[in-house]
């Protein structure tokens, strides 16, 4: 057991969660929302409430069940060992794929500073692989170092995005927002329905606090708090920044901007400041990739600790980092990145990224349902039980809707991957079943 100085603090874990959630998604969000108009801001009401319900339930799981294993451990409470394995397996796949996609996006944004990266499929691929290994090596220093780097790169989000949520109001013009309200004259219900998919999955990643249970100081207290604070922080920043930006930049301009945060800073201050903001956003994006590579390795380690993944994933170095597992993940991701050189494979990869959202959401449902058993085992009072069940229903409904909205192609792919998972577990299950003793065997076969 590593000593606590090599572990993550509450602050480190909270920033990890917030940065993980925002990732590269926040960079384009204002543009996507502006295409529908400011009316799309109403969709935050649904998605923020739903996501807070999920975060709250995960936090409750963490309060009453402090064991290591994150989502998989919560799942096992209700769905036993096979649940643990399937949850880890789906979540691991989700992260392995999604992290490659985040790396591709980050390289895409870097082209503003290194134009060579944008000159074709091969430079893009080289940049992506370089970034994957950079963020893998940076994790070799263990959770403590990862947390410290994360605490630095988070300023890449705080300054441009959170900063805008505060100082942006000095340049905010209500009439600009009013003009941007509904430029396509859609009925309100239709506009909201179209906007929900823009923000529905923006909160994926809140579970990364639970996945880091092994690597945190005082997990019983810090994991639930980081999950709640991280999600709340992201929600506040999301809502404020996407609102204020629509009151500064006229809708028509915002709707076709490929770097909305840079644009707003260039408008307020100067193009130079806009460029700096873009650089900060890229830094935050790389920081979030670092956090996700860490979470990926932790997920594999916790599962290997349970004898459900290859043992090599659980070998840690003196800094408490599962180095061998990280290298294996890096190789796997390099192969995925290499495959995107061909344009056909690149199109296939984007389907894989949609599938990854599905295999991220199924573990939500298995883990959330674990809360019912966790509360039963912990013997919580009737009042707490009833309260949590209400929130749980909201959280599950939201997760199911997010799953449904992924679309039939992604859900079908996810289901096939799930079915393969059952096959894999079939080979593992004997590890957890007592072999019949010699006496019984003889008794059965006289």
């Amino acid at each position, binding site marked *: 057991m590593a000593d606590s100085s090599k572990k993550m603090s509450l602050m480190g874990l909270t920033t990890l969660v917030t940065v*993980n*959630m*925002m*990732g*590269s*998604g926040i*960079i*384009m969000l204002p*543009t*996507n929302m502006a*295409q529908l108009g400011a009316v799309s801001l109403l969709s935050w009401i649904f998605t923020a409430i739903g996501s807070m319900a999920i975060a709250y339930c995960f936090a409750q799981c963490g309060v009453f069940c402090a064991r290591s294993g994150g989502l998989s451990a919560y799942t096992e409470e209700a769905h036993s060992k096979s649940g643990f394995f399937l949850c880890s397996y789906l979540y691991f796949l989700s992260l392995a*794929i*999604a*992290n490659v*996609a*985040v790396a*591709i*996006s980050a390289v*895409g*944004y870097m*082209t503003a500073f290194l134009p060579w990266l*944008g000159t074709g499929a091969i430079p893009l691929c080289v940049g992506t692989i370089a970034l994957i290994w950079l963020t893998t090596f940076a994790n070799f220093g263990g959770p403590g170092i990862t947390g410290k780097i994360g605490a630095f790169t988070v300023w890449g989000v705080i300054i441009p995005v959170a900063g805008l949520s505060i100082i942006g109001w000095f340049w905010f013009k209500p009439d600009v927002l009013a003009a941007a309200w509904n*430029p*396509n004259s859609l009925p309100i219900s239709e506009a909201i329905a179209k906007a929900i*998919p*823009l923000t*529905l*999955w*923006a909160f*994926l*990643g809140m579970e990364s606090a639970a996945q880091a249970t092994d690597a945190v100081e005082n997990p019983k207290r810090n994991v639930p708090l980081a999950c709640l604070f991280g999600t709340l922080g992201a929600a506040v920043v999301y809502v404020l920044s996407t609102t204020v930006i629509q009151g500064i930049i006229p809708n028509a301009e915002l*709707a*076709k*901007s*490929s*770097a909305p945060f840079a644009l707003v800073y260039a408008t307020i201050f100067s193009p130079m400041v806009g460029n700096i903001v873009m650089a900060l956003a890229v830094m935050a994006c790389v920081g*979030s990739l670092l956090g996700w590579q860490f979470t990926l390795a932790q997920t594999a380690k916790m599962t290997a600790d349970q004898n459900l993944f290859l043992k090599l994933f659980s070998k840690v170095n003196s800094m408490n980092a599962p180095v061998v597992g990280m290298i294996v993940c890096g190789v796997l991701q390099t192969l995925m990145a290499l495959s995107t050189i061909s*344009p056909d494979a690149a*199109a296939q*990869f*984007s*389907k894989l*990224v*949609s599938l*990854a*959202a599905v295999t991220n959401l199924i573990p939500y449902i298995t883990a959330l349902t674990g809360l019912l058993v966790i509360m039963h085992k912990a013997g919580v009072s009737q009042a707490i039980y009833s309260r949590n069940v209400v929130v749980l229903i909201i959280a599950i409904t939201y997760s199911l809707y*997010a799953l449904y*909205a*992924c*679309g039939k*192609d*992604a859900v079908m792919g996810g289901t096939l991957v799930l079915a393969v998972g059952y096959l894999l577990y079939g080979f593992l299950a004997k590890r957890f079943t007592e072999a019949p003793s010699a006496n019984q065997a003889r008794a059965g076969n006289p």
Partner: protein
Amino acid sequence: MNVPFATTTRLLLAFALSTLPLVAGANTLERVRSSHTFTLGYLPDLAPFSKQEGDKASGYAIDLCLKVADKLKSELGLPDLQVHYQPVTVSDQVSAVSQGKVDILCTPTPPTLERRKMISYSIPIYTAGLSVVVRNDAAEPLLNVLNGKVANTGPTWRASINNGLANHTYATIEGGVTEDWIREQMRLLGVIASLVTVANNDEGIKLVADGKADAFFSERMLLRNEIAKEGAAKNLMILDRIFEYSPVAMMVDRNDEDFRLLVDTALSEAYYSGFVEKAYNQYLDGTNPTVKKLFRVYALP
């Protein structure tokens, strides 16, 4: 009559002078009969509709014009009628018809109200379709959008490959109806895009081939023809989707109902006899059920 004689004379003179060009133009049949020549006007560089070949011309529209010539021969009893091919330019095509320099403009154009003030039109001979050309390696969201689907069907989350790279440029010929249409559509198309205008099809296609624009909107058959040309860039494709339709027809002189009736009769017969379908197969990309339905709409009973 209380009108003084001088005034009447002046009025009569003015009337006679002002109607002179009209009268001159209104006798296409008379002109053909007296000169034994039928002058076909055409745009020399608009294959597969009309294309210059020495002092003659060929193409879908030329073949239909020759059907009109045949009709003239039989109706006017002029078996030795000479067919003369006269190339015109886009800028003088209307005046060439209205001033009687040509008897008919074979190359089809969309009948607009503005043009109808100067000249008249036959029944439609073709349905122009607004289509789009892209590179073979066009990004999937762009193709989805242009095919009328949602740009990205999957979930939008932190791992969605960024749209920031996908800043598309559309191109179209300056000042056409297409330009307004694209500006209107761009917002709801769901990808980030800007619009540039070009002078002609050649230029637009070159922009896309060179990667300076991502999609060029123009008439489907013209695009097809440009791309099939020898030496054309090989990295382009035309999408099947037709955004807007517009029937196009041949220009004839205004106030010459007799000639117009003869042209429409010849064209309607060509529709019914299957001649048009054959010409479609020869010059254009063949027919389909929709096109055949339109044949019956256009041909007069």
